[in-house]
């Protein structure tokens, strides 16, 4: 590989580029179980023009470029599988515009979830975005690049469905405007009523371009939020309960979770129901509809609302930190999850499979599953905790995750933020026509295969 340190320094300045071993060590890994891959350079651009210049250079020299937000997706998709440049986007941290009445925001490609949340709380307290439960330093652009989900996904779909426009640096270094702002000043629509080109970038894990700006829908921030947890001990009841709860159209967010530890959670499936309102009457009205929807399960003693007073403040946090606590249970601070997306009706099979795999590989598990868009699908986070100092345990986790995904795909699910082997499983199962269209897109946009190579290798 040609030495490109000097041209990179020329583009971004000395302080924003490195090939020092300690930096490369850090940027070669993510917190998941997959083995590190060493980059050759790390670069942190500040502007779209700098991104363009870097990508142009990389394209000329056929050097891989891996865009990276906070590196927290856990599935190894920011590891530079073929070396090259890791492009740390965090310096592109401007909130460009908030359209209050149009309820959207435009952010640069490195703006974090926490930054936007704080900015809205300070300046537009009546607006919010769909914050994921990922650490607050994770970025908005990365989240839509992997079709993330957040606090409002139950109501409005995947976080990528909430995109209202993109600025993308294509693999040839050209910059492209996607959405309504391609022909006017406003960022209100990512596609409709034009042909929707955002699909060339959303969900591609940075393999088709670098998102340098993202327009995102904002939603009303209600004054009050509350939460209840409905508990059942039979997995086959979960689908109907979700159906009833989602039918009320009163819930902000619906998640299902189960875990054997601490003991109080053992043997039960917990359905966390969030609801909001501007007044107490509104909140109470919603609470009643939610209770009424499942009262027959209370009457038959098959399900009930648990007391949550000691947990409430933690539950109402955004993002919620409890999943990170889980990582520390076996000591050594690691966890990773397999994330299939599928119909709610498959819940019993998935849970049985997951519990079986956890037992087979002797792993501690916790599963959190978010209901998407009123119940069209569920997005799983089937997590295993591990000790980072224990390679054998990490290998077990990796095998268990692959097995879980294999099962989920066989049942008709699709993988979420898939790691390389999960991508291969998906490609293997895809209809040839789909695959050939993806190939066409990839070959045309990135003929030199420089963008996050090794991922979505449809060729």
């Amino acid at each position, binding site marked *: 590989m040609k030495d490109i340190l000097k041209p990179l320094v020329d583009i971004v300045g000395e302080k924003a580029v490195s090939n020092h071993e300690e930096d490369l060590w850090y940027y070669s890994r993510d917190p998941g179980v997959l083995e590190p891959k060493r980059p050759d350079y790390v670069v942190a651009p500040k502007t779209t023009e700098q991104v363009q210049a870097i990508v142009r250079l990389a394209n000329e020299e056929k050097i891989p470029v891996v865009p990276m937000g906070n590196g927290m997706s856990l599935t190894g998709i920011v590891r530079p599988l073929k070396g090259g440049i890791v492009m740390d986007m965090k310096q592109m941290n401007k909130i460009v515009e908030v359209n209050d009445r149009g309820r959207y925001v435009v952010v640069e490609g490195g703006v974090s979830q926490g930054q936007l949340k704080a900015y809205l709380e300070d300046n537009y307290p009546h607006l919010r975005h769909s914050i994921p439960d990922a650490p607050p330093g994770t970025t908005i652009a990365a989240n839509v690049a992997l079709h993330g989900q957040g606090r409002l996904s139950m109501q409005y779909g995947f976080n990528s469905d909430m995109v209202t426009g993109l600025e993308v640096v294509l693999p040839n270094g050209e910059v492209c405007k996607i959405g309504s702002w391609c022909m006017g000043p406003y960022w209100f629509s990512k596609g409709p009523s034009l042909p929707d080109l955002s699909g060339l970038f959303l969900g591609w894990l940075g393999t088709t371009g670098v998102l340098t700006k993202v327009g995102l829908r904002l939603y009303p921030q209600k004054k009050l939020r509350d939460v209840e947890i409905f*508990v*059942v*001990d039979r997995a086959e009841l979960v689908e109907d309960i979700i159906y009833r709860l989602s039918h009320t159209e009163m819930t902000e967010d619906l998640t299902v979770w189960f875990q054997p530890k601490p*003991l*109080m*959670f*053992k*043997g*039960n499936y917990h359905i966390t129901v969030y609801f909001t309102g501007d007044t107490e009457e509104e909140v109470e009205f919603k*609470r*009643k509809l939610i*209770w009424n929807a499942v*009262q027959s*399960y*209370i*009457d038959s*003693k*098959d*399900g*009930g*609302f*648990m*007391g949550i*007073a*000691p947990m409430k403040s933690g539950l109402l946090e955004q993002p919620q930190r409890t999943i990170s606590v889980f990582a520390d249970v076996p000591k050594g601070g690691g966890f990773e999850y397999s994330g299939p997306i599928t119909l709610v009706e498959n819940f019993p099979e998935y849970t049985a499979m997951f519990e079986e795999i956890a037992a087979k590989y002797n792993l501690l598990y916790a599963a959190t599953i978010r209901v998407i868009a009123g119940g069209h699908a569920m997005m799983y986070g089937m997590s295993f905790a591990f000790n980072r100092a224990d390679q054998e345990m990490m290998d077990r986790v990796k095998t268990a995750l692959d097995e879980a995904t294999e099962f989920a795909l066989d049942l008709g699910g699709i993988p979420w933020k898939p790691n390389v082997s999960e991508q291969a499983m998906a490609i293997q199962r895809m209809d040839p026509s789909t695959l050939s269209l993806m190939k066409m897109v990839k070959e045309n946009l990135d003929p030199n295969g420089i963008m996050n190579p090794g991922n979505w290798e449809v060729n």
Partner: protein
Amino acid sequence: MYALKHEENVCATCPSPDCLLKCQYMEFSKEDAHKEIMKVVRGEDSVVLKDCTTCYACEEYCSRGNHPYYLICERREEKGILTAPRPITNQWINMTEMQGKFMTGSVEDTVMSCCMLPELKKLGSGDIFAEIESSFVFGAEFMCPAVHTHFAKPSVIKERLPKVLERYKGLGVKKVVCMHDECYGTFTSIAPAYGMEVPFEPVYYMDYILERLKDLKERIRPLGLKVVYQRPCSNRLIPDKFPLVEKILGKIGVEVLNRTYDGENCLCCGDIVRAICGYQAADDIQKRNVDDMAASGAEYCVFNCPFCQSALSDKVSKAGLKPVHIIDLCKMAIGEKEV
């Protein structure tokens, strides 16, 4: 195996079946009350087994030494009748399981029992508890399992309570200061009802406070407050201790105002009712209770049980009263806490 002592003949000859006559959640004529309790006694089906909200009150209403509430629990379990939904029942059983995660302080002859409630450890501090603060026990291994009566699981009590008693015995303690009515009620009512020997002297925390207030007399500055009191369900197991509330409050210059849902007529906090019956019944109980408190004109609502406090604090505050635990009021009176 331990068995509940309940005298059938005492019920059969009872001149006034107050257990069910006074029940606030079921309406019976005197004749029907007698009929229904006798069905329960004989192990027959009774509406009581279906509709009892587990408020504990009939333990107080029966003045003839029988244990109608414990009996209802036994019969429910025998017949497989659940009170709360199955997953909630099991959650409580799991949550209170002994897992070796208990804590003990520097245990002396007298220990303070903080159940599994961190709030009790916090309350049991300062000058009032200075002599026993460091001699404490905390955790499921020392927890009284009385809560499982709410879930009609006396078998859990029969299995766990002897272990708890054994553990105290192992510590060699002479007195246990119970920071929760449920705990004192377990050692002085449930254990004897099942023929279990208690190897120490249980001390009710309000008795302990009364003694301490004598020692701290010089420091007491009467608070001059008017309050209402939220009596917890477990106080029904130890009705002779109910008058202590007024005694303590009298000593610190706090007047307890009369209200409808007072004393024998008190209403429970509603939290367990919510789990068992759903929100309508619980909302109704809580609303009547809080409206009644507000109508009294009191400034504070005094709690004795941390569960009641957590269930009602919000509602009480919204009704314009300040929620406070009786121990915190005492701490205010001796200048340890701000009023």
